[in-house]
Protein backbone atom coordinates (compact mmCIF):
# COMPACT_ATOMS: atom_id res chain seq x y z
CA UNK A 1 0.00 0.00 0.00
CA UNK A 2 1.18 3.45 -0.82
CA UNK A 3 1.44 5.65 2.24
CA UNK A 4 0.04 9.14 1.80
CA UNK A 5 2.25 12.04 2.76
CA UNK A 6 3.12 11.41 6.38
CA UNK A 7 1.57 13.85 8.80
CA UNK A 8 3.67 15.34 11.56
CA UNK A 9 2.75 14.56 15.16
CA UNK A 10 1.60 18.14 15.61
CA UNK A 11 -0.73 17.94 12.59
CA UNK A 12 -2.15 14.65 13.85
CA UNK A 13 -2.67 16.14 17.28
CA UNK A 14 -4.57 19.11 15.84
CA UNK A 15 -6.71 16.62 13.97
CA UNK A 16 -7.37 14.70 17.20
CA UNK A 17 -8.45 17.98 18.74
CA UNK A 18 -11.03 18.31 15.97
CA UNK A 19 -12.40 14.88 16.87
CA UNK A 20 -10.51 12.63 14.45
CA UNK A 21 -10.14 9.25 16.16
CA UNK A 22 -8.10 7.85 13.28
CA UNK A 23 -5.44 10.49 13.86
CA UNK A 24 -5.33 9.46 17.50
CA UNK A 25 -4.77 5.81 16.54
CA UNK A 26 -1.85 6.84 14.35
CA UNK A 27 -0.29 8.80 17.18
CA UNK A 28 -0.69 5.87 19.55
CA UNK A 29 0.80 3.53 16.99
CA UNK A 30 3.77 5.81 16.48
CA UNK A 31 4.61 6.44 20.12
CA UNK A 32 3.40 3.61 22.29
CA UNK A 33 6.56 1.52 22.07
CA UNK A 34 8.98 4.33 22.97
CA UNK A 35 6.62 5.49 25.73
CA UNK A 36 6.30 1.97 27.10
CA UNK A 37 10.08 1.65 27.09
CA UNK A 38 10.51 5.01 28.78
CA UNK A 39 7.99 4.24 31.50
CA UNK A 40 9.44 0.76 31.98
CA UNK A 41 12.98 2.06 32.35
CA UNK A 42 11.84 4.79 34.70
CA UNK A 43 9.56 2.68 36.92
CA UNK A 44 11.33 -0.65 36.50
CA UNK A 45 8.22 -2.84 36.35
CA UNK A 46 6.65 -4.23 33.19
CA UNK A 47 3.09 -4.55 34.43
CA UNK A 48 3.10 -1.07 35.89
CA UNK A 49 4.71 0.26 32.71
CA UNK A 50 1.95 -1.33 30.65
CA UNK A 51 -0.72 0.33 32.77
CA UNK A 52 0.96 3.72 33.04
CA UNK A 53 1.81 3.82 29.31
CA UNK A 54 -1.90 3.39 28.50
CA UNK A 55 -2.73 6.16 30.93
CA UNK A 56 -0.29 8.42 29.09
CA UNK A 57 -2.40 8.12 25.95
CA UNK A 58 -5.65 8.51 27.85
CA UNK A 59 -4.26 11.71 29.29
CA UNK A 60 -3.07 12.72 25.82
CA UNK A 61 -6.56 12.28 24.41
CA UNK A 62 -8.07 14.29 27.24
CA UNK A 63 -5.47 17.02 26.73
CA UNK A 64 -6.04 17.16 22.97
CA UNK A 65 -9.00 19.52 23.45
CA UNK A 66 -6.71 22.19 24.75
CA UNK A 67 -3.69 21.33 22.61
CA UNK A 68 -1.91 24.27 21.04
CA UNK A 69 1.18 23.38 18.99
CA UNK A 70 3.53 25.79 20.74
CA UNK A 71 5.92 23.09 21.92
CA UNK A 72 7.28 20.03 20.17
CA UNK A 73 4.74 17.21 20.40
CA UNK A 74 7.25 14.77 21.90
CA UNK A 75 8.02 17.25 24.67
CA UNK A 76 4.30 17.44 25.39
CA UNK A 77 3.93 13.65 25.33
CA UNK A 78 6.93 12.95 27.56
CA UNK A 79 5.83 15.65 29.96
CA UNK A 80 2.60 13.72 30.41
CA UNK A 81 4.56 10.48 30.80
CA UNK A 82 6.93 12.03 33.32
CA UNK A 83 4.06 13.43 35.39
CA UNK A 84 2.22 10.11 35.44
CA UNK A 85 5.40 8.25 36.45
CA UNK A 86 6.04 10.69 39.29
CA UNK A 87 2.37 10.41 40.35
CA UNK A 88 2.76 6.67 40.39
CA UNK A 89 5.90 6.83 42.53
CA UNK A 90 4.15 9.23 44.91
CA UNK A 91 1.20 6.88 45.23
CA UNK A 92 3.48 3.92 45.82
CA UNK A 93 5.37 5.76 48.53
CA UNK A 94 2.11 6.21 50.41
CA UNK A 95 1.42 2.46 50.33
CA UNK A 96 3.09 0.00 52.72
CA UNK A 97 6.32 -1.25 51.15
CA UNK A 98 6.22 -4.56 49.33
CA UNK A 99 8.66 -7.30 50.16
CA UNK A 100 11.78 -6.50 48.24
CA UNK A 101 13.09 -9.19 45.95
CA UNK A 102 16.60 -8.75 47.27
CA UNK A 103 15.57 -8.67 50.93
CA UNK A 104 16.99 -11.60 52.90
CA UNK A 105 14.47 -14.29 53.77
CA UNK A 106 14.07 -15.65 57.31
CA UNK A 107 17.10 -17.19 59.01
CA UNK A 108 17.74 -20.74 57.81
CA UNK A 109 20.69 -23.03 57.45
CA UNK A 110 23.44 -22.08 55.12
CA UNK A 111 23.96 -18.84 53.28
CA UNK A 112 21.31 -16.11 53.54
CA UNK A 113 18.86 -16.45 50.68
CA UNK A 114 16.64 -13.85 49.10
CA UNK A 115 13.30 -14.18 47.35
CA UNK A 116 15.18 -13.47 44.18
CA UNK A 117 17.35 -16.54 44.68
CA UNK A 118 14.28 -18.63 45.41
CA UNK A 119 12.50 -17.77 42.20
CA UNK A 120 15.53 -17.51 39.97
CA UNK A 121 15.66 -19.92 37.06
CA UNK A 122 18.89 -21.72 37.80
CA UNK A 123 18.66 -24.30 35.06
CA UNK A 124 21.75 -24.18 32.99
CA UNK A 125 21.41 -22.62 29.58
CA UNK A 126 23.81 -21.17 27.09
CA UNK A 127 26.25 -19.26 29.27
CA UNK A 128 25.91 -16.00 27.39
CA UNK A 129 22.13 -16.06 27.56
CA UNK A 130 22.06 -16.30 31.37
CA UNK A 131 24.67 -13.67 31.87
CA UNK A 132 22.84 -11.32 29.54
CA UNK A 133 19.61 -11.76 31.46
CA UNK A 134 21.43 -11.29 34.73
CA UNK A 135 23.03 -8.19 33.39
CA UNK A 136 19.64 -6.78 32.36
CA UNK A 137 18.31 -7.39 35.88
CA UNK A 138 21.46 -5.82 37.30
CA UNK A 139 21.00 -2.77 35.10
CA UNK A 140 17.35 -2.48 36.12
CA UNK A 141 18.29 -2.52 39.81
CA UNK A 142 21.07 -0.04 39.22
CA UNK A 143 18.72 2.32 37.39
CA UNK A 144 16.19 2.09 40.21
CA UNK A 145 18.89 2.93 42.73
CA UNK A 146 19.43 6.29 41.02
CA UNK A 147 17.72 9.36 42.50
CA UNK A 148 14.57 10.09 40.46
CA UNK A 149 15.82 13.31 38.89
CA UNK A 150 19.02 11.61 37.70
CA UNK A 151 17.13 8.55 36.50
CA UNK A 152 14.73 10.70 34.49
CA UNK A 153 17.60 12.51 32.77
CA UNK A 154 19.49 9.27 32.18
CA UNK A 155 16.53 7.46 30.63
CA UNK A 156 15.61 10.43 28.44
CA UNK A 157 19.09 11.02 27.07
CA UNK A 158 20.53 7.51 27.07
CA UNK A 159 17.56 5.30 26.28
CA UNK A 160 15.31 7.67 24.34
CA UNK A 161 18.15 9.60 22.74
CA UNK A 162 16.85 13.05 23.66
CA UNK A 163 19.15 16.06 23.31
CA UNK A 164 19.90 17.95 26.52
CA UNK A 165 17.62 20.75 25.30
CA UNK A 166 14.71 18.37 24.74
CA UNK A 167 15.33 16.62 28.05
CA UNK A 168 15.49 20.00 29.77
CA UNK A 169 12.06 20.88 28.39
CA UNK A 170 10.60 17.66 29.75
CA UNK A 171 12.35 17.85 33.11
CA UNK A 172 11.73 21.56 33.48
CA UNK A 173 15.29 22.63 34.24
CA UNK A 174 18.14 24.34 32.34
CA UNK A 175 20.18 22.16 29.92
CA UNK A 176 23.18 22.69 32.20
CA UNK A 177 21.35 20.90 34.99
CA UNK A 178 20.58 18.05 32.60
CA UNK A 179 24.33 17.76 31.91
CA UNK A 180 25.27 17.63 35.58
CA UNK A 181 22.53 15.14 36.44
CA UNK A 182 23.55 12.95 33.52
CA UNK A 183 27.17 13.03 34.66
CA UNK A 184 26.18 12.14 38.23
CA UNK A 185 23.98 9.30 36.96
CA UNK A 186 26.79 7.87 34.84
CA UNK A 187 29.21 7.97 37.78
CA UNK A 188 26.69 6.21 40.00
CA UNK A 189 25.94 3.50 37.44
CA UNK A 190 29.60 3.04 36.63
CA UNK A 191 30.52 2.34 40.26
CA UNK A 192 27.58 0.01 40.66
CA UNK A 193 27.83 -1.90 37.41
CA UNK A 194 31.55 -1.98 36.72
CA UNK A 195 33.22 -2.46 40.07
CA UNK A 196 36.58 -3.42 38.58
CA UNK A 197 38.77 -0.50 39.47
CA UNK A 198 41.04 1.05 36.96
CA UNK A 199 44.25 -0.88 36.46
CA UNK A 200 42.86 -4.14 37.81
CA UNK A 201 42.99 -6.14 34.61
CA UNK A 202 40.77 -9.03 35.70
CA UNK A 203 39.16 -11.43 33.29
CA UNK A 204 35.72 -10.34 32.06
Amino acid at each position, binding site marked *: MKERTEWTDEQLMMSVRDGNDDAFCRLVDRHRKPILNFVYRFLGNRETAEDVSQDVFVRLWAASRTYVPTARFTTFLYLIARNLCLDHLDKRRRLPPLTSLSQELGAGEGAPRTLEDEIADTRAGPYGEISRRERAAELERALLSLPEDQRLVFVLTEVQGFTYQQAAEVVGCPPGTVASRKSAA*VKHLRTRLIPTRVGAEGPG
Partner: protein
Amino acid sequence: MNCMETQDTLVLIHDGEASPEQVDAAHLHLSECPSCRAEADALRQINVWCHEEPPPEPSETWDLALTAKLGDLKMRAATEEIRLLRQIAEEMATRIRALETAQAAERLERDLMNVNELALYLHVTPEKVRDLLPEIPHIALGGDVRFRRAAVDGWLQLRESAPAEAPLQWNDWVIGAGSHLSS
Protein backbone atom coordinates in the same frame (compact mmCIF):
# COMPACT_ATOMS: atom_id res chain seq x y z
CA MET B 1 41.96 19.39 31.36
CA ASN B 2 42.17 17.27 34.53
CA CYS B 3 40.62 13.82 35.05
CA MET B 4 37.39 15.07 36.60
CA GLU B 5 36.74 17.60 33.84
CA THR B 6 37.64 15.00 31.23
CA GLN B 7 35.17 12.49 32.64
CA ASP B 8 32.37 15.07 32.64
CA THR B 9 33.31 15.97 29.07
CA LEU B 10 33.27 12.31 28.07
CA VAL B 11 29.59 12.21 28.95
CA LEU B 12 29.00 15.34 26.88
CA ILE B 13 30.89 13.86 23.91
CA HIS B 14 28.95 10.62 24.26
CA ASP B 15 25.68 12.59 24.11
CA GLY B 16 26.85 14.79 21.23
CA GLU B 17 26.70 17.90 23.41
CA ALA B 18 30.40 18.83 23.57
CA SER B 19 31.95 21.74 21.69
CA PRO B 20 34.82 20.99 19.24
CA GLU B 21 37.27 22.57 21.72
CA GLN B 22 36.04 20.30 24.49
CA VAL B 23 36.41 17.28 22.21
CA ASP B 24 40.01 18.22 21.35
CA ALA B 25 40.96 18.87 24.96
CA ALA B 26 39.43 15.59 26.11
CA HIS B 27 41.22 13.62 23.39
CA LEU B 28 44.51 15.19 24.36
CA HIS B 29 43.95 14.14 27.97
CA LEU B 30 42.81 10.65 26.99
CA SER B 31 45.95 10.04 24.95
CA GLU B 32 48.04 10.25 28.07
CA CYS B 33 45.64 9.03 30.81
CA PRO B 34 44.84 5.30 30.91
CA SER B 35 42.44 5.71 33.83
CA CYS B 36 40.27 8.16 31.87
CA ARG B 37 40.44 5.80 28.89
CA ALA B 38 38.98 3.13 31.17
CA GLU B 39 36.20 5.53 32.13
CA ALA B 40 35.44 6.10 28.47
CA ASP B 41 35.19 2.33 28.01
CA ALA B 42 32.90 2.07 31.02
CA LEU B 43 30.61 4.70 29.57
CA ARG B 44 30.43 2.82 26.28
CA GLN B 45 29.75 -0.36 28.22
CA ILE B 46 26.83 1.17 30.09
CA ASN B 47 25.37 2.38 26.82
CA VAL B 48 25.70 -1.09 25.29
CA TRP B 49 23.92 -2.63 28.27
CA CYS B 50 21.12 -0.11 28.06
CA HIS B 51 20.36 -1.22 24.52
CA GLU B 52 21.27 -4.88 24.85
CA GLU B 53 17.80 -5.96 25.94
CA PRO B 54 15.16 -5.26 23.32
CA PRO B 55 12.61 -2.72 24.56
CA PRO B 56 9.48 -4.32 26.03
CA GLU B 57 6.69 -5.07 23.56
CA PRO B 58 3.18 -3.90 24.41
CA SER B 59 1.13 -6.93 25.46
CA GLU B 60 -1.67 -8.27 23.25
CA THR B 61 -4.27 -6.66 25.48
CA TRP B 62 -2.57 -3.24 25.48
CA ASP B 63 -4.84 -1.78 22.78
CA LEU B 64 -7.94 -3.29 24.31
CA ALA B 65 -7.12 -1.87 27.73
CA LEU B 66 -6.48 1.56 26.23
CA THR B 67 -9.80 1.47 24.37
CA ALA B 68 -11.59 0.53 27.59
CA LYS B 69 -9.90 3.35 29.51
CA LEU B 70 -10.73 5.82 26.76
CA GLY B 71 -14.35 4.66 26.67
CA ASP B 72 -14.52 5.23 30.38
CA LEU B 73 -13.06 8.69 30.02
CA LYS B 74 -15.38 9.61 27.14
CA MET B 75 -18.37 8.49 29.17
CA ARG B 76 -17.24 10.52 32.15
CA ALA B 77 -16.63 13.46 29.82
CA ALA B 78 -20.16 13.11 28.42
CA THR B 79 -21.65 12.91 31.93
CA GLU B 80 -19.62 15.92 32.90
CA GLU B 81 -20.82 17.76 29.78
CA ILE B 82 -24.45 17.05 30.66
CA ARG B 83 -23.81 18.24 34.20
CA LEU B 84 -22.23 21.42 32.84
CA LEU B 85 -25.11 22.01 30.43
CA ARG B 86 -27.57 21.61 33.27
CA GLN B 87 -25.57 23.98 35.38
CA ILE B 88 -25.54 26.51 32.54
CA ALA B 89 -29.31 26.13 32.06
CA GLU B 90 -29.90 26.70 35.77
CA GLU B 91 -27.63 29.69 35.75
CA MET B 92 -29.47 31.12 32.74
CA ALA B 93 -32.80 30.64 34.49
CA THR B 94 -31.50 32.43 37.59
CA ARG B 95 -30.22 35.28 35.45
CA ILE B 96 -33.49 35.60 33.57
CA ARG B 97 -35.39 35.71 36.87
CA ALA B 98 -33.05 38.41 38.18
CA LEU B 99 -33.47 40.36 34.96
CA GLU B 100 -37.24 40.13 35.19
CA THR B 101 -37.18 41.36 38.78
CA ALA B 102 -34.96 44.26 37.78
CA GLN B 103 -37.24 45.11 34.87
CA ALA B 104 -40.29 44.98 37.14
CA ALA B 105 -38.57 47.32 39.59
CA GLU B 106 -37.70 49.63 36.72
CA ARG B 107 -41.31 49.61 35.56
CA LEU B 108 -42.44 50.41 39.08
CA GLU B 109 -40.06 53.35 39.09
CA ARG B 110 -41.42 54.51 35.77
CA ASP B 111 -44.93 54.02 37.17
CA LEU B 112 -44.89 57.61 38.30
CA MET B 113 -45.51 59.93 35.35
CA ASN B 114 -45.41 63.70 35.02
CA VAL B 115 -47.85 65.67 32.85
CA ASN B 116 -45.83 65.23 29.67
CA GLU B 117 -45.37 61.49 30.20
CA LEU B 118 -49.05 61.03 30.87
CA ALA B 119 -49.84 63.02 27.73
CA LEU B 120 -47.67 60.63 25.76
CA TYR B 121 -49.29 57.68 27.49
CA LEU B 122 -52.81 58.90 26.68
CA HIS B 123 -51.90 60.23 23.23
CA VAL B 124 -53.19 63.69 24.06
CA THR B 125 -51.48 67.06 24.46
CA PRO B 126 -50.12 68.16 27.84
CA GLU B 127 -52.69 71.00 27.73
CA LYS B 128 -55.49 68.45 27.51
CA VAL B 129 -54.01 66.68 30.54
CA ARG B 130 -54.06 69.96 32.47
CA ASP B 131 -57.68 70.50 31.44
CA LEU B 132 -58.65 67.07 32.67
CA LEU B 133 -56.58 67.36 35.86
CA PRO B 134 -59.54 67.55 38.26
CA GLU B 135 -60.85 64.29 36.80
CA ILE B 136 -57.65 62.32 36.62
CA PRO B 137 -56.39 60.71 39.82
CA HIS B 138 -53.17 62.53 40.64
CA ILE B 139 -50.74 63.32 43.41
CA ALA B 140 -50.14 66.96 44.21
CA LEU B 141 -46.49 67.65 44.96
CA GLY B 142 -46.23 71.28 45.89
CA GLY B 143 -46.98 73.09 42.64
CA ASP B 144 -46.39 69.94 40.63
CA VAL B 145 -48.47 66.83 39.94
CA ARG B 146 -47.62 63.19 39.37
CA PHE B 147 -49.76 60.35 38.08
CA ARG B 148 -49.50 56.71 39.17
CA ARG B 149 -49.90 54.44 36.20
CA ALA B 150 -52.07 51.93 38.09
CA ALA B 151 -54.41 54.69 39.20
CA VAL B 152 -54.58 56.10 35.69
CA ASP B 153 -55.27 52.65 34.27
CA GLY B 154 -58.07 52.14 36.75
CA TRP B 155 -59.53 55.50 35.89
CA LEU B 156 -59.38 54.64 32.20
CA GLN B 157 -61.08 51.33 32.82
CA LEU B 158 -63.92 52.97 34.71
CA ARG B 159 -64.24 55.59 32.03
CA GLU B 160 -64.39 52.90 29.44
CA SER B 161 -67.21 50.92 31.05
CA ALA B 162 -69.12 53.85 32.56
CA PRO B 163 -71.98 55.50 30.67
CA ALA B 164 -70.89 58.84 29.30
CA GLU B 165 -73.45 60.86 31.24
CA ALA B 166 -72.80 59.34 34.65
CA PRO B 167 -70.27 61.50 36.46
CA LEU B 168 -67.98 59.55 38.71
CA GLN B 169 -66.13 60.25 41.88
CA TRP B 170 -62.45 59.91 41.07
CA ASN B 171 -61.08 60.91 44.40
CA ASP B 172 -60.80 57.27 45.44
CA TRP B 173 -57.90 57.00 43.08
CA VAL B 174 -55.97 59.82 44.57
CA ILE B 175 -53.02 58.54 46.48
CA GLY B 176 -51.39 60.65 49.10
CA ALA B 177 -53.81 63.49 48.40
CA GLY B 178 -54.79 65.86 51.15
CA SER B 179 -58.08 65.51 53.01
CA HIS B 180 -59.55 68.45 51.10
CA LEU B 181 -59.75 66.22 48.04
CA SER B 182 -61.74 63.40 49.58
CA SER B 183 -65.49 63.61 49.48
